[in-house]
């Protein structure tokens, strides 16, 4: 099953999105990581890297990011790992994460989960 790392500036935001995803797909490996090493708002290279390790499997890891340094720090972690099974996706953080987590519980591959997350951008709310 594809695993997920949710990277936000805020640990609370990351945890909240994880909660929403697991509500529909409790069996999916999802790690929420937010904030700096000392608990402030921001992102941490080490925390993101460790979170990837915790959900890693042969099926791969999809990393979701919110804004600013979440995106850039994740990009650096992924570049340094150089593993094609660890990828990030550009999508709305909440909607994309929930949709992709649910798709993973239904057996989607890494690329399929990424596509589902990207499609969330097109979903009209009203």
């Amino acid at each position: 099953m594809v695993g997920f790392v949710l990277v936000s500036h805020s640990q609370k935001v990351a945890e909240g999105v994880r909660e929403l995803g697991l509500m529909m797909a409790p069996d999916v490996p999802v790690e929420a990581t937010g904030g700096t090493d000392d608990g402030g708002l921001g992102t941490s290279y080490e925390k993101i890297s460790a979170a990837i390790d915790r959900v890693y499997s042969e099926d791969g890891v999809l990393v979701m990011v919110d804004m600013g340094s979440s995106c850039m720090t994740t990009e650096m972690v992924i570049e340094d790992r150089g593993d094609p099974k660890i990828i990030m996706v550009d999508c709305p953080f909440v909607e994309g994460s929930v949709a992709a987590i649910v798709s993973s519980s239904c057996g989607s591959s890494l690329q399929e989960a990424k596509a589902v997350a990207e499609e969330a951008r097109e979903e009209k709310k009203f």
Partner: protein
Amino acid sequence: MTDSSKVLDIVGHIGEAISENAQFLTDLDAAIGDNDHGVNMARGFKKVEEDLPGLKDKDMGAIFKKVGMDIVSAVGGSSGPLYGTAFMKAGAAVAGKMEIDLNDFLKIMDEAISGVQLRGKAEKGEKTMLDAMMPARDAMREAAEAGKGIKEVLDAGVKAAEDGVEYTKTIIATKGRASYLGERSIGHQDPGATSFMVMLKAVADKYEE
């Protein structure tokens, strides 16, 4: 020629300058960003400072790479990956060297700028650190080509970086958190451009007339 012990001395001084200006940089960021630039940068350079003794006698590539990695891991905001990538890319260009000359320094600036562009996907004129870095690099190259020595080259760079910081007051931010403010960002100088100016000044401080 600048050897590695001098480079470590300069990096230490950059850290001091960042720490002295931390509140100022954070205040600038409070106006148009998320109120943490100076604090974040100071935390990054504190980690650098702790690691400096272990970099004695290392080559330039190793020094720049470690500084970049420390910045990435300790800063926590966007300036971490941006300045971190800048230092790491600069380090790759001078790997293996125990001394650097003016030409190497210009190469370091080129690589630092391309690192920031690669990571931030920004161009000149978007109210970012590039608006200080690029004019500074151009002015330093021009001064070097005119046969000036290192001190004059650095002073020309600092002057251009200061002008670049002033220029950021006149433009709208289109990158980063400040872009959410649109027109409201006009009149405020960019914190990232300012921190670059502070760093370049700190480098210039370490060279005699």
